[in-house]
């Protein structure tokens, strides 16, 4: 059965967050996981009850590799790790 977590963006700065057993965290590894449709739907309902913190909560599929949670989709992996480009490197010498 597929493993899911709930993700969203933080209201104040848009940072990617995950629903934990106790509020939200920017760390995917803290996320509460749900197996199967019903458990996932219940998590999502809980997330939606807190509109003041998180914007647009939705579920994503993850896998467990050893102890680590990892999103299945590339898009979500990028959301976890941030832009893959070295945007801060000043182009000026």
């Amino acid at each position: 059965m597929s493993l899911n977590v709930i993700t969203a963006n933080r209201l104040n700065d848009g940072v990617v967050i995950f629903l934990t057993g106790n509020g939200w965290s920017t760390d995917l590894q803290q996320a509460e996981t749900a197996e199967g449709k019903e458990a996932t739907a219940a998590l999502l309902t809980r997330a939606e009850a807190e509109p003041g913190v998180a914007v647009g909560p939705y579920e994503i599929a993850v896998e467990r590799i050893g102890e680590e949670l990892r999103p299945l989709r590339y898009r979500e992996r990028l959301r976890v790790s941030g832009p893959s480009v070295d945007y801060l490197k000043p182009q000026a010498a």
Partner: protein
Amino acid sequence: MYAYDAIDRELVETRVAEFREQVARRVSGELTEEQFRPLRLMNGLYLQLHAYMLRVAVPYGVLSSAQMRKLAHIARRYDRGYGHFTTRQNIQYNWPKLEETPDILAELAEVEMHAIQTSGNCIRNTTADQFAGAAADEVDDPRIWSEIIRQWSTFHPEFSFLPRKFKIAVTGAQKDRAAIKVHDIGIVIVRNDAGELGFQMWAGGGQGRTPMIAKLIRGFVAERDLLSYLEAMLRVYNRHGRRDNKYKARIKILVHELGADEYARQVEAEWARIREGVLSLPQAEIDRIRAAFDEPPFERFEGDSRAFHGKRFEDRGFQRWVRSNVKPHKKPGYAIANISLKPVGGIPGDATADQMDAVADFADRWSFGEVRVAHEQNLVLPHVRQDDLYGLWLALGAVDLDTPNIGLLGDIIACPGLDYCSLANARSIPLSQALSERFGDLDRLHDIGEISLNISGCINACGHHHVGNIGILGVDKKGEEFYQITLGGRADEDAAVGRIVGRAFDAHETVDAVETIVETYVAQRRDGERFIDTLERTGPAPFKEALYGAD
């Protein structure tokens, strides 16, 4: 440059105050996200993959040095020290905080800027030729007419909720540098046989899911009729545009389904009713706005500068930059200097706050305080004395803004793609960086010659991939990034949509595939033939064969 009048100023300031309150109510929980979302979008604030994104309008791509300095300040104070110039001549900030956005908008208002018309189903910020008022081949200055359109379209009550967003572009020259044929409405300033100034009106172009080239709707509209004719064009669209299906809502679908003739017929009928009404432009108003774009105090020169040509002989690096980045100016002794925001391996369109400040300084020193943003994601100093070009070039070099690749393969257009954009299927930036490095040898770049390479991270085509000579579209295959290549697109006066060459490639293969395409061209080209001309002569077959083999 055009300066706000009291009405403009009040509109913008009122909007900032209003948004400050809306943000406060959202943060306090009084407004839900569903209620707040349309309000923030009306102020150019999107929520992207990793953060908010603020899109600031640069009307028809024109910036004063003071405005550029303000953009730099915002990048430094409220963002991460850089901004991204876009194909719509806007600038985007990738990391603003929600609660600071009203402050950013207030700071922008100080220099007569805002984020209105950068989102939503309204008439978006009108774009124009970045060489406006400077180009040697110009019939008339598109800024005048873009400004008139701006005043008419901002908060136009009837067109605030169109079936879909609406984009207008204006060119004042036959050589189209504003990609007008891939806009909802494209306007070409022309003179008729009697020598009168007027407009050719095109409609129904666009990229995205169903790319289309605009059709000619009317060959000549007189100056005073510009707004009434536009109003008629928008009305017919507003009335019949598909509101039931977002993928069919753009005017390109309407013009395609009705046929250009029938659309034109309805526009003419509507126009006949409203032509003599309030939208008929008084000459005094045209004159007032024209005066705002009066020429700067150019010096008088007889022909080209000798010293400038001397420097070109002496310094090969300078000569190379002049060849690609400097364009002819309408005044003897002057030139248009293009500043590439595409350093080898860099992020197309990104500029650091320090670079923005430097460009503002250069504009003050060498270009009457004027800067332009090009839809190819570059900057322009429109009025530089030929004698000053060498000094400018050296100064640009000191801030890594002297890459001599305008119009060449390194001048890649790329949207933010999956590194930022929540709609993306694949990344655009790292691929553009890899390609830029692969073609990093400047001698080779100049030998390959004029060629456009455009990359979008999804079918929305923000990176104009449909109209790149080589277009690259990011696609998602089972969660992995792949890239579809098209050939033969062009965004000039002979605009065309590129055709898919074959199966998509992964990122590494894509870099090699572009190399293969370029080599095939170099092997096939005849004297002086540009990539696009060779491709049009040979057709895609040799390219397909080189990419995929003979079968």
